[in-house]
Each structure stands twice: as C-alpha cells, then as structure tokens.
C-alpha cells in the first residue's frame, strides 16, 4: 500500500492531469470550506446570544402581583393582590433552595433627579443588596446598597453611569448628594449593566427600607426576585410552586389561579432559549450535512468521469500486465490523496476566513465564531471516504472489464 514506486506513479499522474486534479480537489475543498464557515457562524450566533443572557442571572424567579381570577373560599374573583414586606420575609424564610433574594419597590410616575442645575427623569428601584447579583450589575465605582443602609434607613443611592453623565457632567459623583423627588440621597456607587435594555441604565437604586419610609410606600412591594443557585429546571419549578403556594396561603387565593400572582422563571426561559439553540444547531447541521452530501455527489461525479476518462489507459495497463487490484488501488490512492489534500486546504481556508473576517463581526447576536476542528476533521474523513467509495465502484468496474473492451474505448 505504501509502496514508494506507486506513489511516484501517482504523483506523476497528478502532475500531468492538472485540470482533473483541480476539479476533484475543488469540490472537496469547497464543501469543507462551506462547512467550516457554516459551523463557525452557528457557533458565533450561539456565543452572541449566550453573551446576551450572561448579563442577567439565568436562574432567577421573578414574582409580581395581579388580580384573582378564580373564586376562593367564598371570595369573589377580581380581588387585587398587594405584595408586602412580610410576604418577602415569609418566602425568604420558609422556601428552601433560595440563594439570593430581594424584593423591589418601584416608584411610579415621573421621578425628577437633580444635581445643582442639572435634572432629569429616571426610574427609581428600591431593593435589597442581593439585587445587584440578581440583575448582574457591574459596579464600576464605590459600592451597591448594603445591609447597614437597609438597617439604618440611610439615604444612599447607587446610580448608573448614564445618570452620572446626565447629572454630573464630568464631575466626580461619589459622596455628592442628588435630589430624588426633593429628598437628598448620597451617591455611594456607580454601576453599569451590559444588558441591551436601555431601561436598566436609566435607573438609580435606593435602599428599600429608606424608600418605603421616605416616599410613603408603607410596607408595599411590587416584585420579589430570588435566585435558585444551580438548581435544575425541575428543582426550580418546584421552588416556583412552593413560592406560589406560600403566597396563596398568605393572600388567600387559589394556588391554581394563573392571574393572582405572576411568576417568570428565567431558568425555564433560559432552557427555552437553549432548546432554540439546539434547533438552530440542528438546522445548521442539516445544512452542513447537505453541504457534505453535495460535496460527496461532486466528488463521486468527478471520480466517475475520471474513471471513464481513464478507461483506455486502464486497458493499456492491463495489456501490459496490470492486475485488477493494482488498477483499483492506483485510482483509489490517487483519489484519496487529492481529496484529503484539497480538504485540508479547504479546512485551513475556512479557519482563516473565520478568524480574519468572523472575528471582526461583533454584534448583539454574533460573537467570536469558532469551529470544532474535530468535527471538521470528521467531515473531511467522510468526504475522503466517500470520494474513495465513489471512485471504487467505477474503478472496480473498469478494472473488471476485458482489456480488449477498454482498449477499444476511444
């Protein structure tokens, strides 16, 4: 098989049949090239959306209140449910599996923030310290709201870099007081959020205890957010159910009432996205598979033509004493050599294009395209094998026909 003389014979044949070699090689190189680009783009898409998700904890359960829609224990539907501090405390204390948790009290309406002569309208979110982890805020300066702030009803605030720009105009905001609806709060930190939603950046955070007292929120809260650590979807659904049951008891509504409270489980959403990815991935594989099939058909076609083209040569060789085996192996080794070499070139080209062009495309849903080289090598192997098989059938046929018929072939 690894007879040096035979390789020399093959190389001299390849050298003298450049067009044929090129055509065979091209279909393989093209197939592999396209596959690499395709797989790489798929990966890029996945990386992009994963990055999008990375900016918010993927294991969060959000709870907010609604209106009952089912009668329960003699009470009519249509009651408003108002979440309160004690609901949060109760959930936090009694439901197992909670990692981080925070309630949130929103102040609706136009909130005017001002510093010196600058002012603007922004969102105010009043939360516990854990909230920074839940929202995955990035603290760029100072700190987030902390436990002493909550306990001592301190008037502190952590503002977004966007708010800083709007109010401070380049002045250092740390330790300065801003007016929040007329009440001065001391800036203790600056945050940013690489979430794409502008909403999250047009926001300041206050300690929830202070805000409820200062802005007459009493003990009302709007939202409860908890993270469930590394719980699985099933565990997370279990926790979700427990939270719902606990709140149903506290507020006396039917636990199966879908409108009394609303729960958004991001882990479940994340899983949905993962499933979407799986579908996209599969779609890419289907196309990739199609590309490979096209490559195989291309190689097969050319191999058949090559064998047809060489029928006379085969006849001559047989008359000179070539055995059928030597004919078949000559053609096959040539095919394997060409396809693997061309496939390698396609592989390298594909990777080069991905690295140069692909890495310059950086958008919301596309990032760092890369390809699993092992898969690409398998694809290459598949192409080489199918090329060999495609060559083998006609080559065997050609080697089996009588030399006289092969010689007669013009």
């Amino acid at each position, binding site marked *: 098989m690894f007879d040096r*003389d035979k390789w*020399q*014979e093959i190389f*001299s*044949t390849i050298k*003298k*049949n450049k067009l044929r070699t090129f055509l065979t090689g091209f279909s393989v190189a093209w197939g592999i090239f396209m596959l690499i680009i395709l797989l790489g783009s798929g990966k890029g898409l996945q990386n992009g959306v994963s990055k999008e998700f990375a900016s918010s904890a993927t294991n969060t359960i959000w709870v907010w209140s609604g209106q009952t829609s089912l009668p329960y224990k003699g009470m009519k539907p249509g009651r408003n449910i108002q979440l309160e501090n004690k609901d949060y405390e109760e959930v936090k204390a009694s439901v197992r599996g909670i990692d981080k948790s925070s309630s949130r009290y929103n102040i609706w309406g136009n909130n005017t923030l001002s510093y010196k002569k600058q002012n603007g309208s922004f969102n105010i979110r009043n939360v516990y310290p854990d909230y920074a982890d839940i929202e995955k805020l990035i603290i760029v300066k100072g700190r987030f709201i902390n436990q002493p702030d909550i306990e001592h009803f301190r008037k502190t605030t952590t503002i977004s870099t966007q708010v800083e720009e709007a109010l401070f105009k380049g002045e250092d905001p740390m330790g300065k007081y801003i007016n929040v609806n007329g009440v001065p709060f001391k800036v203790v930190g600056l945050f940013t959020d690489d979430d794409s939603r502008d909403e999250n950046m047009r926001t300041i955070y206050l300690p929830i205890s202070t805000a409820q007292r200062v802005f007459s929120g009493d003990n009302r809260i709007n939202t409860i957010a908890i993270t469930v650590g590394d719980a699985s979807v099933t565990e997370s659904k279990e926790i979700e159910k427990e939270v719902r049951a606990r709140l149903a008891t506290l507020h006396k509504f039917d636990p199966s009432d879908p409108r009394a409270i609303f729960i958004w489980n991001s882990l479940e959403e994340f899983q949905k996205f993962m499933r979407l990815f799986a579908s996209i991935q599969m779609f890419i594989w289907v196309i990739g598979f199609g590309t490979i099939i096209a490559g195989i058909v291309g190689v097969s076609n050319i191999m058949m033509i090559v064998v047809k083209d060489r029928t*006379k*040569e085969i*006849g*001559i*060789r*047989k*008359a*000179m*004493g*070539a*055995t*059928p*085996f*030597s004919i078949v192996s000559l053609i096959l080794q040539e095919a394997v050599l060409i396809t693997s070499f061309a496939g390698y070139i396609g592989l390298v080209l594909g990777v080069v294009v991905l690295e140069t062009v692909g890495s310059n495309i950086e958008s919301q849903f596309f990032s760092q395209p890369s390809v699993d080289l092992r898969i690409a090598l398998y694809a290459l192997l598949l192409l080489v094998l199918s090329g060999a098989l495609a060559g083998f059938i006609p080559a065997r046929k050609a*080697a*089996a026909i*009588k*030399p*006289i018929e092969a*010689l007669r072939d013009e």
Partner: protein
Amino acid sequence: MIQLTNIHKSYTTGNNSLHVLKGITLKIEQGEFVSIMGSSGSGKSTLLNILGILDSYDEGEYFLDNAYIRNQTETKAAALRNRYIGFVFQSFNLISFKNAMENVALPLYYQDVPRKKRNRIAMEYLERMGLQEWAEYMPNELSGGQKQRIAIARAIISKPRVILADEPTGALDTATSYEVMQLIKEINAEGITVILVTHENDIAHMTKRIIRLRDGQIESEVLNGKPPIIN
C-alpha cells in the same frame, strides 16, 4: 509454443449472436513469424485478442507454452500477459500523459522493477530504436513511426516469448511501415515468436507464414510464399 484446437467465439449483442470464430485449429512454434490476413469481419482481430488473453473464447482449447489458457482470473491473465506477451497496436496505445521513456518502462513497473532500473532499461531499448533523444517527449509530440517504435520497445522490454501486433503498420505510410517491419523482423530473428494481423499483402509477405481467415475459419495457409500446408 501456441496450440489452438477448434476455437469458437461468438459475440452477443442484444438478441443477435454473431459467430465470429468457427473452429480455428492452429499450431505456431517458437520463433515463427506469422501473419494473419483476412477481410474485415473475418475474425482476425478476435483471434489475436484470444491469443493475447485479452479476450475469452467459448469452445476449444488454447495452450500457451504448454499452459492451458481458459477462464483464468484477471489477475492470473495479467501475470501471463506480462510474462509471455508483448503487444503492438495499430493506434499505438501509448499513455498520453507519460513520456516516451515512461511508456516503454511501463511493463517493468508491473514486474516490480525499481523506477531507476526500469528507466535505465527503457533508455537502452529506446537507444536500440534510435530514439534516445526523444526519451523525454510526450506521445503527442512524436510522429506515427516514432510512436510505433516506442510501442515496439515497450512490447519487447519485458522479454516476452510472443509479440502480438494488430495492424502495426495500419496507421503508417509505406516507408515508415517498412522501417517498422524491419524492426519486427529483427526482433523475430532473436527468437521471439511474432504474430501480426494485417490486411496489406506486402506486409504479410515479409512474414514467413501467412494464415488467411475467411468467415471465422482458416481458408488457407501459405508458408513463405510456397503452397499451403494442411495441419
């Protein structure tokens, strides 16, 4: 050397069966110089192909150097062809992408002779044909006479016992034909059996024995222009 007994051969195309050889009995001794003549369709090329183990026959017996040739595997046939027979074709049948020297060396490739050695031997044979300067030329750069001389060199490089030539001068002009025939004569003089198919009388008369075929049967045999002998 060659012993044919009652050889029959027919070709089937669709529903039509064409009976080409209808019982050929023939004996050719080592060192003979034989020509097979006949009009087109007389079966002369078919006979030559059977002799060259390029084609099979339906009935009869064929012994080549006392070996019974019948329904052997392609691999066995290839080995027999390589060892016993050298071919010369009307259309030369050189491999177009190999140069003159490589074409001549080809049979040695199938004898597992190392590349350097077979190229050296091929050069010797090209020299003998007076073509050493053309060793690097491709077939399409050569004249018909040169091509046929290369084909002859290729046929004899494996030191065969029999040379089978199918209309070796059919594509050549008269002067070149005579040159080629002179070469073949020289080869025969070395003791190699030569059997050639031709339809040209002057070519046939350069051989020592003329076998005429007609409708798949031997019509007559002439020994060196003398009256026919019957087997």
